[in-house]
């Protein structure tokens, strides 16, 4: 694949009204970028802007080296002239046309006699051969979604945009469609942009996450990085991290790879982060999977690492895994949540009311600028 410096999708948008936007994103060929945010965060608007259905006050969109929009230079190509494939949230299939015609109608660029064969091939790609003559009303939700994907790909788009493509189907169908998308991705050498409010889905499918809040891109990066190092308390709360606490940086120990953090009178070892001077107030977060429950019968390695004790406030077995909430130092305002295998919890006698000790793995502790009071109320 060509690796021209401006291959892929480049988007920069800014406006105050009607929906505030301050977004910047890029997506390389073959990469899947997930735009994640609550409803009203502007993610659909961004997608529609890329497609040319919405025009921002100020912005630029280029794809594969072609400028589609540049408000500064007065460039604004209509949707017909942008090589985009767009899968609508409710698919927007043409109800009066058959499945095959829904696809053929997008093949206007091909000579007439080649269209049918190409449409058949696209139907086969989405595993719907044999459904040529069905109308949308005669197809299941999952089948409609596949037709929508096939139609979006029919134009040979330079970018594939998907607006909540899995939100209108049941759980079983969703898993299946998601697997199919992952399969199909291997053959698509174009940028893929997925809009979703489902963080799990974004984590599972995307190479890059872009977290949006009120039209602003707050954080962008690979899912594991964003999830473990959200960068700000706002993003941490948006992606559902619960273990957020306030603390003060006490000392930097670059030689040991630690930043020493004071929290409720104890000193914690956190992963080295030179961004914060000693005596700086910070908000810190620890993902549930880096909180380790100590065994009651015999101590194990790693127990020296940030041991913290508390009383189990809530124990909820959810099948194989159980969710545990501990009140550190017995204080109500400091719930620490983590997940353990249910059988481990049972063996260690974890039930509501007992005292337990856990280790906060230094590598999991992520320091962020101290959170302002208003931000806490923002969500």
């Amino acid at each position, binding site marked *: 694949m060509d690796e021209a410096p401006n291959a892929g999708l480049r988007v920069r948008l800014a406006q105050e009204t009607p929906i505030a936007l301050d977004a910047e994103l890029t997506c390389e060929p073959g990469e899947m970028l997930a735009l994640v945010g609550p409803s009203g965060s502007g993610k659909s608007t961004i997608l*529609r802007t890329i*497609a*040319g*259905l919405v025009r921002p006050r100020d912005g630029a969109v280029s794809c594969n080296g072609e400028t589609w929009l540049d408000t500064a230079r007065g460039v604004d190509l*209509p*949707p*017909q002239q942008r090589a*985009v*494939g*767009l899968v*609508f949230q*409710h698919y*927007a*299939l*043409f*109800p*009066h046309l058959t499945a095959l015609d829904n696809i053929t*109608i*997008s093949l*206007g*660029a091909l000579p007439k006699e080649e269209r049918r064969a190409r449409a058949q091939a696209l139907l086969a790609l989405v595993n719907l051969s044999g459904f040529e003559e069905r*109308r*949308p*009303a*005669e197809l299941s939700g999952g089948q409609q979604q596949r037709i929508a994907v096939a*139609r*979006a790909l*029919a*134009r040979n788009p330079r970018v594939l945009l998907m607006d909540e493509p899995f939100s209108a189907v049941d759980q079983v169908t969703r898993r299946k469609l998601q697997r199919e998308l992952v399969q199909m991705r291997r053959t698509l050498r174009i940028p893929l942009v997925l809009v979703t409010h489902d963080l799990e889905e974004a984590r599972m499918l995307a190479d890059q996450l872009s977290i949006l809040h009120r039209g602003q891109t707050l954080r962008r990066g690979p899912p594991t990085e964003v999830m473990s190092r959200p960068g700000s308390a706002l993003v941490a709360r948006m992606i559902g991290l619960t273990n957020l606490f306030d603390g003060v940086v006490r000392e930097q120990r670059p030689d040991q790879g630690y930043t020493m953090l004071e929290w409720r009178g104890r000193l914690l070892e956190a992963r080295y982060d030179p961004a914060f001077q000693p005596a700086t107030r910070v908000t810190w977060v620890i993902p549930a999977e880096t909180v380790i429950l100590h065994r009651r019968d015999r101590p194990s390695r790693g127990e020296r690492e940030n041991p913290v004790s508390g009383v189990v406030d809530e124990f909820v077995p959810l099948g194989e895994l159980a969710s545990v909430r501990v009140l550190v130092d017995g204080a109500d305002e400091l719930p620490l949540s983590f997940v353990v295998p249910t059988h481990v919890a049972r063996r260690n006698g974890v039930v509501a009311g007992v005292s337990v000790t856990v280790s906060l793995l230094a590598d999991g502790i992520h320091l962020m600028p101290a959170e302002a009071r208003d931000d806490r109320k923002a969500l």
Partner: protein
Amino acid sequence: MDWIALTLSLRLAAWTVVLLLPLGVLVARLLAWRRFAGKGFVEALIALPLVLPPTVLGYYLLVTFGGSSPAGQAFQAVFGRSLVFTFEGLLLASVIFNLPFAIQPIQRAFESIQPDLREAAWVSGLSRWETFRRIELPLAWPGVLSALVLTFAHTLGEFGVVLMVGGSIPGETRTIAISLYDRVQAFDDRSAATMSAFLLAFSFVGIGLVSHLTRRIGSRHG
């Protein structure tokens, strides 16, 4: 049965449909999707013939078309004919009093089309004209069909406006509804009965056809 009047009525209805439907589609689509100042006023104006006594409408048309009005004089100058008491004048009146019958069903039909279908068409590479021809019009078709039949049937039956603007000139402005009235005045019960029965049957079949076709297209679209 007054065959001349029947032929005239059918000719009038056909011409009304031919002139009014394209205009109706254009205006209805605009009213369905565009927001503009004075839209409510325009809609009320279009609906007016539904509630206005036909003679009132007829009176104003007569005044507007008459030889002493600018419109009447302009028409006279261009075509060398008067607009009142002629087929052309009748046709123009017919187009005006059928506006709500043509526009309203088509407007409802356009309003029921999901906006994302048009966007999907544009994103699929269809120009605005192609989107109109291949997506919007087929989806609005039941409304267009209703408009066609309602306009046609209503033209055959209109009485008050026709009498005011056209008078009752055989072969020129005497429609079947006027002829029916004349027959009753002349105590020709046989002719009156035949013509009444014809108009009744025609209206009934027309309405039945529309509701049948609309339902069939509707079920196809799901």
